[in-house]
């Protein structure tokens, strides 16, 4: 065998041993079901669980073993589909990307729907206004003239310019963490601006001026007060506030 080999190595931390130490954690969940009551209320569930598991695993355990009526959205379970943004211990996160050990499980863990959106049942909110704001910024490539035969050319640097904002999974963690959005649901919100940024700064796109005009609106980028909640909340690590600032700057300089 010509290839160099590694020293024998066991993985660190999470995976060392097959033996799992379970803990008992309390999940304090904000329940709401208008078929049952017009009022929302908190309900506690005790769950015996491996602390290296995800909050989503705990929610599944509750739903599957304790209370089948607990309702939440989820799909991929590893942070790429954007279904399970929720407010965990007062912070917006994806339930599938938050490990129980990282959120002080010795104390009750609070779980509630993301804020600023209409709660439909338990952790499920009405996503329609959120997607409408997204659609309103014309989130698609706008070009003019004849299409080239092959691909449009783009330098690696030009591609890098908007790389960060292509990561968005439309989970709404940013928008629903924004105090401006909480107080004014008309505000486009960070996610829509991020997706406008993704096209405004794409060298192939010719719709930048139109999008900037949309965001120059009274409910557009100028509402942003750079609280940085959105940047903290983004499960994809997008520098959301920076993207919003870049859009503001483009509006002033008309250079992008």
């Amino acid at each position, binding site marked *: 065998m010509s290839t160099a080999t590694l020293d024998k190595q066991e993985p660190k931390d999470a995976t060392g041993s097959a033996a799992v130490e379970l803990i008992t954690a309390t999940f304090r969940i904000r329940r709401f079901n208008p078929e049952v009551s017009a009022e929302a209320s908190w309900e506690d569930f005790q769950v015996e669980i491996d602390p290296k598991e995800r909050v989503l695993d705990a929610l599944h355990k509750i739903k599957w073993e304790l209370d089948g009526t607990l309702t939440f959205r989820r799909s991929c379970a590893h942070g790429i589909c954007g279904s399970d943004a929720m407010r965990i211990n007062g912070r917006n996160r994806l339930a599938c990307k938050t490990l129980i050990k990282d959120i002080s499980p010795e104390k009750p863990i609070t779980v509630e729907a993301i804020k600023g959106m209409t709660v439909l049942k338990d952790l499920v909110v009405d996503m329609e206004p959120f997607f409408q704001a997204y659609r309103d910024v014309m989130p698609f490539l706008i070009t003019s003239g004849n299409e080239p035969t092959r691909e449009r050319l783009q*330098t690696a640097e030009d591609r890098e310019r908007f790389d960060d904002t292509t*990561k968005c999974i439309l989970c709404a963690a940013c928008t629903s963490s924004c105090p401006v959005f909480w107080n004014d649901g008309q505000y486009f919100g960070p996610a829509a601006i991020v997706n406008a940024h993704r096209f405004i700064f794409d060298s192939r796109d010719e719709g930048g001026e139109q999008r900037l005009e949309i965001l120059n609106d009274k409910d557009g980028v100028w509402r942003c007060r750079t609280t940085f909640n959105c940047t903290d909340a983004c499960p994809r690590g997008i520098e959301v506030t920076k993207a919003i600032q870049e859009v503001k700057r483009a509006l002033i300089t008309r250079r992008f």
Partner: protein
Amino acid sequence: MKIHKYDTVIVGAGGAGMRAAIESTKRSRTAVLTKLYPTRSHTGAAQGGMAAALANVEEDNWEWHTFDTIKGGDYLVDQDAAEILAKEAIDSVLDLEKMGLPFNRTPDGTIDQRRFGGHSRNHGEAPVRRSCYASDRTGHMILQTLYQNCVKEGVEFYNEFYVLDLLLGEVDGVRKTAGVVAYELATGEIHVFQAKAVIFASGGTGKFFKVSSNAHTLTGDGQAVAYRRGLPLEDMEFFQFHPTGIWRMGILLTEGARGEGGILRNKDGERFMEKYAPVMKDLASRDVVSRSIYTEIREGRGCGPDGDHVFLDLTHLPPEQLDAKLPDITEFARTYLGIEPYTDPIPIQPTAHYAMGGIPTNVLGEVLADNTTVVPGLYAAGEVACVSVHGANRLGTNSLLDINVFGRRAGIAAAEYAAKNDFVELPESPAAQVVGQVERMRDNTGTERVTEIRKALQETMDANVMVFRTEQTLKTAVETIAALRERYLHVSVQDKGKRFNTDLLEAIELGNLLDLAEVTAVSALARKESRGGHYREDYPNRDDVNFMRHTMAYREVGEDGVESIRLDYKPVVTTRYQPMERKY
């Protein structure tokens, strides 16, 4: 009950469904029904790339790609379809770029390409750079780009509408498509969608395995609906296990990690793939690599205290390369395992990944009622379908390609069919079956629980229908599944409400998984040979004399109401490539 009327109805809003919708919306009045939101679909979890012989970085051509696809599928691929896939790949990628997809770029500004398993230059000489990619989130970028273009085209979506039945009407003795019946998750209301053409694009069925890269929602809904309406399912015994899932969790770590130079190692640090695939090594096809990993584990060279996994080693790659080309999967290792891939190898094991089989279609996406007869107005594309371009084992990057090539084809064909044909009259009480199904499930007072049956199903599938199979394990699986199906009749849900009843939804999904798991195990039991992803320890060789043919499984209901599975077979389309021994 509400009744809607559209020319074309598409079931599913992942890559195939939205690619179809972009075409059909331009040509016909179209509705897209999805049980999720479009951007939640599992296309978004695909990472490594989309194959096309663009030859942007080195010599390549679609004929080599065709050959690799056929060889990768262990000669069970329909060769006419593979040729279409490889030829149309080039325009498919260019179309996506023009729609705005941010591919990684070469220094010349063209689309960059990288290596991937089973893709070779000149019929197996050496790995070739054929995968067009956007970092390690190519599927995410395809899903976003297609959704963006659906917004641009004004595609009409019905989000969180779960399709539970296919309506067929008889016209002059021919069964034709009449529409679908859907359950609206938000309200519990039943909707009938009358349609001239229906396209199933509802994805895979990977949740009947426990260790799986698939989303919770991938429960074979389209396959199960078609199957219950008497349509066959093709090649269901062929299921792909991706070599590199995160140990015990099954979360996908792209083959692109090995395309970028990552190496698989056993507990001795040995690069064991050199033994099994001297030319392609870690980039052999997925079935070969997954079997090699389990061979290492079974022979005592697995890692960890239980010796139940191996390592994916990226530590020799520069951190800048990992950051630029593999940022998501390295973050998964940090988030879920607490491991730093710059310095530590990542524990992995094969994970249930992709159904090669599904609803049989021809190259236009038309669904087949038997080996040759088309169901007028019915189409399928993507993982739900079996064209068959993947045969017994799909090559990496060929599924993002499949959804674009055949999604587009199905979208055009369905809309053109709708333009030329009339609505088929809806059957009397079109929603009766669905209403009955939903009410029975909601009102059932049995003592069985969804979670227990699902867990037992996943455990038996992992133990008996995974990478290595024998007569004995498959018989065990068939018997266990039959018993679980019996228990399922007594399953009850706790949520009796109408609003967002995901308790009920999961119960219905479980019924689909049980039906499809049974078809998978029965089809596998009857295939007494080893080919691609189907490996029988008791029949370790490929048997082209008796088994170079597609399995076609039909649901039969006897006069006494007893259900059974009837297996038939369909010839493989062979054009220019004769089966050869498969080596990597």
